[in-house]
């Protein structure tokens, strides 16, 4: 760009908020002599309509490539200026708002000289940044209006049913032969107290009556997944055939497995010691024997090996306890627990109701777990009651072990295929708080117990929420990659590689937090390439590239270098 005077500068007095500390005349003098500055105006309030119009009219200078505004911070009024200018057709990329109020006049009000010097530095830095800002490469994404749902449990089914009702074609893949996931294993579902058929029938009907809106692949196995938000290619085998499909978004709803107790509490050795799911089988078969039942909570979980709470087991045991009472109202049912996890209104009410029905609760301590007694059959359970500090012996015909949900054995493989992280327990990691179903890979959503153990009702809700997120992505039509962001309407910049300079060392690949960089063979040599859809412009790659061959056009090394120079030049 050489000595082109290409930047228009505007300084804001901010009705004295800036000008009474900073000597704007001096700033103007210093900037006018700057080789990059084409013109300079000082206004009273750039953020108000009256000046905005002047500003916009002055900008219609074909030779000016950028605007540098010395005003307040972006977060105070700067956003407003940029938005207003954008409405007048001036791209925000060409507007640099340099904060000389919050970041200068207000915090240096006692030091007008220094503040003036600093303002000059800051504005020169702004000019340097604006002059060296390049427009990033852009790709357009035309999202495929189809969604891939992995797993046909409650979460997956509700996601699929919702999407199909929105007119989106869904590919529903499941490892099992029939849909329903874990719900197939239980007789009735808590806290709604309905059968699993009733629970999902409406949704299943939606899916299977959708006239091809849903392609359901039972007993299928995932082979590979490629691509990024808006356009994934997924291949899998179903029966003997292999399929390859293109979808715009992926919903992972693989659920979790039920942990077996591994010999804990003599399970497997002593007749009458069951897991919750084995009890369900008896409920389903209608063959429940014995009317003294003791449930033991937190079996194989909330311990050193699995230091998490599986969240659903308490409610499951409450449900089963009530079912025992349904069969035999005279039954004696105990729940031995460490804490009853029934947060909220619905579950708390469920707990109260169970208590009212006569289920008895007894708290044990982690370091003094119950002991199951008996020779051939269960005879009783001995437990230290933490509330009364007494040892108690409870007669029992059945002992039911409440075991947690744990990640599936192939969770690692699926995580790898879709670029997901897993938490310390092996569940899929999602973004936190405001984006609880989104993952580090844009366009891939996780819901249900694959994310964290949940009851059917939450799984359904999460499935719907994931469907909404997927719909958001694919319904927007063609859009620029820079618009594909979880956190904002527009990404900061997208990385660009100079292939001539790239040595293919792979530092960027190793460091990229979005898996956006990869190495590809170009003319016989490995070169880094950036997936612009995944790239979020954080700049990690830039700072580890040994020779600067990867850059953020919006914030190049040149720009930072020139900004540093601008700091050094004055007064030295």
């Amino acid at each position, binding site marked *: 760009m050489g000595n082109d005077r290409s930047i228009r500068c505007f300084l804001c007095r901010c009705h004295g908020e800036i000008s009474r500390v900073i000597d704007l005349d001096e700033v103007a003098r210093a900037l006018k002599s700057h080789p990059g500055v084409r013109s300079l105006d000082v206004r009273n309030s750039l953020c108000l309509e009256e000046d905005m119009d002047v500003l916009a009219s002055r900008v219609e200078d074909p030779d000016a490539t950028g605007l540098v505004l010395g005003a307040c911070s972006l977060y105070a009024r700067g956003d407003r200026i940029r938005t207003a200018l954008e409405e007048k057709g001036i791209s925000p990329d060409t507007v640099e708002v340099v904060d000389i109020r919050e970041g200068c006049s207000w915090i240096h009000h006692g030091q007008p000289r220094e503040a003036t010097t600093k303002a000059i530095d800051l504005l020169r830095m702004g000019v340097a940044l604006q002059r060296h800002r390049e427009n990033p490469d852009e790709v357009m994404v035309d999202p495929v209006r189809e969604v891939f749902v992995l797993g046909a449990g409650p979460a997956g089914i509700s996601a699929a049913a919702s999407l199909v009702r929105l007119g989106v074609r869904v590919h529903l893949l499941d490892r099992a032969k029939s849909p329903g996931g874990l719900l197939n294993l239980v007789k009735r579902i808590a806290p709604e107290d309905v059968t699993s058929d009733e629970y999902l029938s409406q949704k299943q009907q939606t899916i299977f009556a959708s006239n091809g809106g849903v392609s359901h692949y039972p007993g299928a196995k995932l082979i590979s997944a490629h691509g990024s938000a808006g356009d994934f290619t997924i291949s899998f085998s179903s029966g003997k055939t292999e399929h390859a499909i293109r979808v715009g978004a992926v919903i992972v709803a693989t659920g979790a497995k039920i942990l077996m107790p591994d010999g804990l509490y003599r399970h497997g050795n002593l007749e009458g010691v069951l897991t919750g799911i084995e009890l369900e089988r008896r409920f389903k078969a209608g063959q429940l024997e014995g009317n003294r039942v003791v449930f033991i909570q937190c079996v194989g979980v909330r311990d050193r090996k699995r230091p998490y709470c599986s969240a659903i087991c308490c409610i499951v045991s409450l449900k089963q306890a009530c079912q025992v009472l349904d069969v035999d109202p005279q039954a004696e049912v105990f729940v031995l627990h460490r804490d009853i996890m029934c947060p909220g209104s619905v579950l708390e009410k469920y707990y109260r109701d169970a208590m009212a029905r006569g289920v008895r609760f007894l708290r044990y301590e982690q370091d003094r777990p119950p002991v199951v007694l008996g020779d051939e059959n269960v005879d009783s359970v001995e437990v230290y009651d933490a509330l009364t500090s007494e040892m108690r012996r409870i007669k029992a015909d059945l002992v039911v072990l409440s075991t947690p949900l744990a990640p599936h054995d192939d969770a690692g493989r699926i995580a790898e295929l879709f670029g997901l992280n897993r938490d310390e327990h092996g569940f899929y990691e999602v973004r936190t708080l405001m984006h609880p179903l989104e993952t580090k890979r844009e366009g891939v959503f996780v819901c249900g117990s694959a994310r964290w153990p949940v009851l059917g009702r939450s799984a359904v809700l999460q499935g719907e929420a994931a469907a909404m997120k997927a719909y958001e992505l694919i319904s927007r039509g063609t859009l620029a990659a820079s618009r594909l962001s979880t956190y904002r309407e527009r990404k900061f910049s997208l990385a660009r590689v100079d292939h001539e*300079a790239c*040595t*293919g*060392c792979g530092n960027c690949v190793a460091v990229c937090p979005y898996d956006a960089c990869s190495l590809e063979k170009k003319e016989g040599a490995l070169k880094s390439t950036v997936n612009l859809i995944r790239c979020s412009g954080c700049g990690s790659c830039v700072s580890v590239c040994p*020779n600067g061959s990867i850059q953020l056009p919006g914030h190049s090394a040149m720009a930072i270098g020139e900004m540093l120079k601008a700091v050094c030049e004055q007064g030295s």
Partner: protein
Amino acid sequence: MSLREEVLTRVKALLKDRRVDGVLGLSLFEKEPVPCLFEDPFDVDALVIEPKWLLAKLAMNILKTAPQEYRLGLVCRGCDDRAVTELAKRNQLDRNRLTLLGIPCTAEQARKCLCSTPYPREIVAGERVEGMYPMNDEQAQLFLTGSMEERMKRWARELNRCIKCYGCRNVCPICVCIPCKLEDDLWVKRGHIPADMVSYHLIRAFHLSDTCVSCAGCTDTCPVNIPLMLLQVSMRETLKSQYAYEPGLDPERVSPVLTEQEKGEGTLFQEPAWIDSLRGGS
């Protein structure tokens, strides 16, 4: 059999069995040692194993220009071995096309290089000698201790001799970038002497912070005797103590600077001043 003879036998066998197409080593040319690519077993008698000469980068260039099926043997020391590992990690050479003939350095050589691992991972002949801890060297201590002012003076005295010949960069077995940041005005002002020497050397040193294989090539090459390798010592110590990471030793392990924290690793952090909510990792 002397160490040289053992190596000779190995090299000949490799070439005879066609397990490699050539072996890179040193030979005497008019009594001066020079790198030589031996492709005929009958030429191998000219091979010498002294002095220490870094051949990794040369091997990389041979492999880059040779046909894809060309396989190369390399007579190498510990540092060359590590350099090969680092270059392979950075996709600069294909480790499968290389057969290393590792030999250990002598104790004297190790002392000279302040080398803590003066032997390759696999040795075809000779005996390992123990390496040395760089900080135990008197000269190194002189450069790496003392007040900031003393250090500043000492390094200013050293670096100001630099004539910016780029020898340190060129000899470095890890430096492969073209173009190189050190030739870019943005980072190092060309023609600026001497102040910009500092950024030249610091940028160069930092670029190697997690890859330097401590071959001492830079120090050896420097025409004005700047002990350049000493710039690396403290960073290398930090990597080792915080992450148990040493460049070139583990072909599978990615530099901890590029990866997420692994379990059991140190964090390398002093608690920053602005800490109220600091709680590592998630």
